[in-house]
């Protein structure tokens, strides 16, 4: 039962066992290590898939109840198997490659988008001592790994051979890079206080959650994160009623499922990063650390879903104005005020 509170110990035990097995089999130790790491990554991938399924179900249920309807109810108890059914349906769909598509790029785009989110995810500190990838530049790595998703979206838009896809992809890219800057600047205030880029150390440094010390930065982070993941009210690139679906209009079947998966993985990574930087990560009383992180991440994700049914979609020019003319100056003011206070103390 102790493993629930200290999952890192379980990993260490399994790791030792695996190494013993490697020695027993007479294989080089490196092979055991590599295999062990691969298993951890496989576990994270499976975890990713489960988390996304839960998120999709939660989003549909929350959306339903916010609009005074029930949401999915048919498949399984209260519709819990709805997402599983949808996944199977997407798996069984014919995967067409449109005649005008650039085939190589068209195939590669979903991989790029998903892997960028996945590589960012592995740097998240899930619990004390439970960090799949620990780098002393963890924060920079996480942000850098999450960015190539933009390139994947451009690839998808360009290679589809559909002018609306191209336009959607370009809009997505313009929006994502525009909100990247305030997002990074809002994190800067936290780094100035914590003086580290190593995520576990950053969590340890939070005597009080940084949302108390950096409320403005948290607000900027939240808005920029919603825009970064192309969600309402910033979903202009996908705008169902205007463009058909933006960059993934021409995608179907399993490849579309990957884009869908990536969107939620990116969302989860940004929310978990927000929880780690501003809400104290795994720290909390009673409950095990990883559960605290999930609870805090879930709280931020709930705000994401809440936004979707509260705000009407912005116009493209309003969106760019908000990013460059409101959030960016605010982020600079936040840095300067933080700097001034730190110098004066």
């Amino acid at each position, binding site marked *: 039962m102790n493993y629930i509170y200290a999952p890192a110990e379980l990993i260490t035990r399994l790791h030792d066992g695996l190494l013993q097995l490697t020695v027993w089999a007479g294989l080089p130790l490196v092979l055991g290590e590599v295999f062990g790491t691969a298993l951890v990554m496989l576990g994270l*991938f499976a975890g990713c898939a489960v988390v996304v399924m839960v998120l999709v179900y939660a989003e549909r249920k929350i959306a339903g109840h916010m609009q005074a309807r029930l949401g999915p109810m048919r498949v399984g108890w209260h519709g819990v198997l709805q997402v599983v059914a949808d996944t199977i349906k997407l*798996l069984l769909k014919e995967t*067409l490659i449109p005649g005008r598509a650039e085939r190589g790029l068209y195939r590669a785009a979903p991989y790029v988008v998903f892997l960028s989110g*996945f590589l960012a995810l592995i740097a998240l500190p899930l619990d004390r001592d439970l960090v799949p990838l620990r780098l002393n530049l963890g924060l920079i790595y996480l942000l850098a790994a999450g960015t190539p998703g933009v390139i994947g979206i451009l690839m998808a838009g360009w290679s589809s051979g559909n002018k609306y896809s191209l336009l959607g992809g370009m809009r997505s890219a313009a929006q994502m890079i525009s909100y990247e800057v305030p997002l990074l600047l809002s994190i800067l205030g936290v780094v100035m206080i914590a003086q580290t880029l190593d995520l576990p150390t950053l969590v340890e440094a939070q005597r009080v959650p940084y949302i108390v010390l950096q409320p403005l930065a948290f607000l900027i982070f939240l808005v920029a994160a919603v825009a970064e993941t192309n969600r309402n009210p910033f979903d202009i690139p996908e705008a169902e009623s205007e463009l058909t679906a933006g960059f993934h209009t021409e995608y179907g079947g399993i490849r579309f499922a990957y884009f869908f998966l990536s969107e939620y993985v990116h969302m989860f990574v940004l929310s978990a990063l927000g929880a780690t930087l501003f809400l104290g990560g795994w720290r909390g009383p009673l409950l095990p650390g990883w559960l605290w992180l999930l609870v805090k991440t879930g709280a931020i994700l709930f705000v994401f879903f809440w936004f979707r049914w509260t705000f009407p979609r912005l116009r*493209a020019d309003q969106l760019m104005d908000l990013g460059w003319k409101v959030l960016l100056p605010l982020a600079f003011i936040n840095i300067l005020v933080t700097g001034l206070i730190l110098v004066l103390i």
Partner: protein
Amino acid sequence: MEHVGPYTTIVIALAVGFLCLFAGVLISWLLSPHNPTPLKLEPYECGEPTVGPARVRLRTMFYLFALVFVIFDVEVIFLFPWAVAFRELGLFAFLEMLAFIGILLLGLAYAWRKGALTWR
């Protein structure tokens, strides 16, 4: 976990992620029907016949935003080491960075006045 170097871990994660996705595509390919007809392969434009090429010319504003983004993104990279060492360096670093950010804000104001940040 910790005996393989961190950068090897990234490569392993990349490989595992790729293989998992590829397995999914493979399974889907085995299970799903294959019946592409010329009509299915047309671009999806809500039933209208497609006019002109898909790679249309785009407005220059996309490139303007990309340029401004590059400037600010590089700036943020310069700001991160400064932020990490901020408390040790004290007032001097603060004033130095004030000048740096000031120059960049001047650039932002210039782009703003020139209308580079206006979506048209």
